[in-house]
């Protein structure tokens, strides 16, 4: 028994993939898909090979062609993420080597250091003292009146 193969042309329409036509011949399907792709009428074109394995009664599918628009979109996305990665790396490197950046980072660290628990306690003590002073002042005023 031989395995059965079918080549489906899919088009991307209204946010989903739709089967346009089915061929038993790979070359014909590829030819038609390329022709459709070059027509510019479709947002996306792909050819999916479907293989039915008689022995296991399983169907396996794989995309054997993607229209240029999809390929271009994928390539652009890949380029963009690559550029982002490079830019991020360079910025990090610059921050490490540039003396101005290093000073800024050190100052940031210093500022971070200042926000220690001791500092907080000091602030709390100051607030408490101020509140006590205010209360004493009020009492003196009350006594005076």
């Amino acid at each position: 028994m031989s395995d059965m193969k079918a080549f489906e042309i899919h088009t991307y329409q209204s946010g989903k993939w739709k089967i346009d036509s089915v061929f038993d011949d790979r070359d014909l399907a590829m030819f038609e898909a390329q022709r459709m792709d070059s027509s510019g009428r479709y947002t996306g074109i792909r050819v999916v090979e479907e293989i039915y394995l008689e022995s296991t009664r399983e169907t396996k599918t794989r995309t054997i062609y993607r229209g240029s628009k999809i390929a271009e979109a994928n390539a652009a996305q890949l380029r963009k993420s690559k550029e982002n990665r490079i830019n991020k790396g360079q910025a990090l490197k610059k921050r490490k080597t540039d003396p101005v950046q290093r000073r800024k980072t050190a100052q940031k660290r210093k500022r971070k250091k200042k926000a220690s628990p001791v500092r907080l306690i000091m602030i709390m003590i100051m607030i408490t003292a101020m509140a006590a002073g205010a209360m004493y002042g009020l009492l003196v005023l009350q006594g005076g009146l």
Partner: protein
Amino acid sequence: MVLRLLSYWREWCGDAAYPSFTQVDPTRMAEIWDYSFVLDIVGHEDNPIVRTVGSEFQNYLPQTVRDCALTDVPAASLIEHAASYYHEILDRGVPISRGGEFIKYDGMKVLYRSIILPMSDDGSSVSGLLGAANCREVPSD
């Protein structure tokens, strides 16, 4: 020819899922129409009736098959092979093209490429099938 007919079909479809037979203008596609056939499936889903057969297509048949049920068409003929997978179009609702070879009733080997397209009266449910096939005879081994 198969791909040209498919292009026509897509054009007829417009925004609908399937085109109607009323959109088919045989004079505009005479070169394809001569190789085409129409299957009536309304009430005959299990055994479609051949309603029309193009003149060139008829040349590969030993007798007229107009208004014949598919099970009654001559064995080992082009229409038998070209229409053999009609149920797949009914199941999937998309155009399907098949090719192959067979030994014709007169002993000649025939290489063929066919296509069957779903057609509709209301644009959404399949009510008929338009098929076409071209072929080449080669001496059998």
